[in-house]
């Protein structure tokens, strides 16, 4: 046997996705649209929260749209479309997360004029693991944590929580009934992402939505578009 040779490579495994995401972000900046990636465990309330957000933004005269990823169905897109905002489904066909090329492909097919939008929301597939690794070109990564799923979720999925810019505690209307421990949740979130802003909302009662809309607006006022993280 000959001596082993070493062939240097030094390339990022996700470099294709990262490059595409950077191009998407530049494209979004040019169009002046702020892009928000919503991630959470299945059923944490992304669609309900997004539906309420779309409705409020439209009432305020703003122009939001949404792309929604789902493993198999278009139920979420149908729910979101009730807000009157343009909505498009991405059926991932079993893929457990969205990738940048799915965003660019669907945007191209959709022929949506991004310059006519203020916000583009992307509802990721319900999953606290895989979406962490994939930049979609978003300006803001929002992680949702419902009051029913356990205050220590951030400690179990630190990578995703660490990659997010802001946490939304959802279903706050039932916090008392499920004995949600606010201090424990805050401690867990701040352990894995020191100083992260935490907002509490209920899609059902509308509680906290005003704070969220103000936060979004503050992010949008900064240029180049970027998250306000502390």
């Amino acid at each position, binding site marked *: *046997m*000959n*001596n*082993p*040779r*070493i*062939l*240097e*490579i*030094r*390339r*990022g*495994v*996700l*470099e*294709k996705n990262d490059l595409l995401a950077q191009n998407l972000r530049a494209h979004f900046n040019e169009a002046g649209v702020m892009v928000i990636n919503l991630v959470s465990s299945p059923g944490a309330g992304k669609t309900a929260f997004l539906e309420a957000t779309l409705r409020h933004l439209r009432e305020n005269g703003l122009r939001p749209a949404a792309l929604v990823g789902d493993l198999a169905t278009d139920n979420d897109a149908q729910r979101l479309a009730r807000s009157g905002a343009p909505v498009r489904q991405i059926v991932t066909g079993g*893929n*457990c*997360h969205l990738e940048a090329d799915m965003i660019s492909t669907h945007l191209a097919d959709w022929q949506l004029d991004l310059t006519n939008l203020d916000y583009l929301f992307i509802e990721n597939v319900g999953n606290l*693991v*895989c979406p*962490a*690794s994939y930049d979609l070109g978003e300006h803001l990564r929002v992680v949702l944590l419902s009051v029913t799923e356990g205050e220590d979720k951030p*400690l179990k999925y*630190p*990578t*995703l929580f*660490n*990659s997010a810019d802001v946490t939304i505690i959802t279903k706050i209307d039932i916090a008392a009934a499920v004995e949600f421990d606010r201090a424990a949740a805050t401690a867990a979130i*701040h*352990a*894995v*992402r*020191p*100083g992260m802003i935490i907002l509490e909302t209920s899609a059902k009662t509308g509680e906290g939505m005003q704070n969220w809309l103000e936060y979004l607006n503050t992010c949008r006022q900064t240029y180049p578009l970027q998250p306000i*993280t502390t």
Partner: protein
Amino acid sequence: MHELSIAYHLVEIAAQAAQSAHVKQVDALHLRLGALSGVVKEALLFSYEIATAGTVLEGSRLVIEEIPVALHCPACAVTSVLDTIQVFRCPICGQPSNDIRQGRELEVVSLEIADEQPTYS
């Protein structure tokens, strides 16, 4: 689980490099894997076998170097290695910090090759 898709990306990058260097057989692929990469080592090792089947990397070993998080503390002006990804605090003074200097790596470093020297024509 997205490790299989990660493994396919990995193989694509490595196979491309092997081909440009006229390599016929690879013994090992060296990878740097950060604690915050979002990829599980065991799942990746398992997926690697599947993803390499029928490629120039078939039968090769996946050698993973695990990279811990390194956190910079502005107060101490020191970057320390953490042994956890659940608490982002300076191990010296206990201050929280978000200044992560290392730990997100997911990088193909090199290939180990033991075949005969390539023939250039």
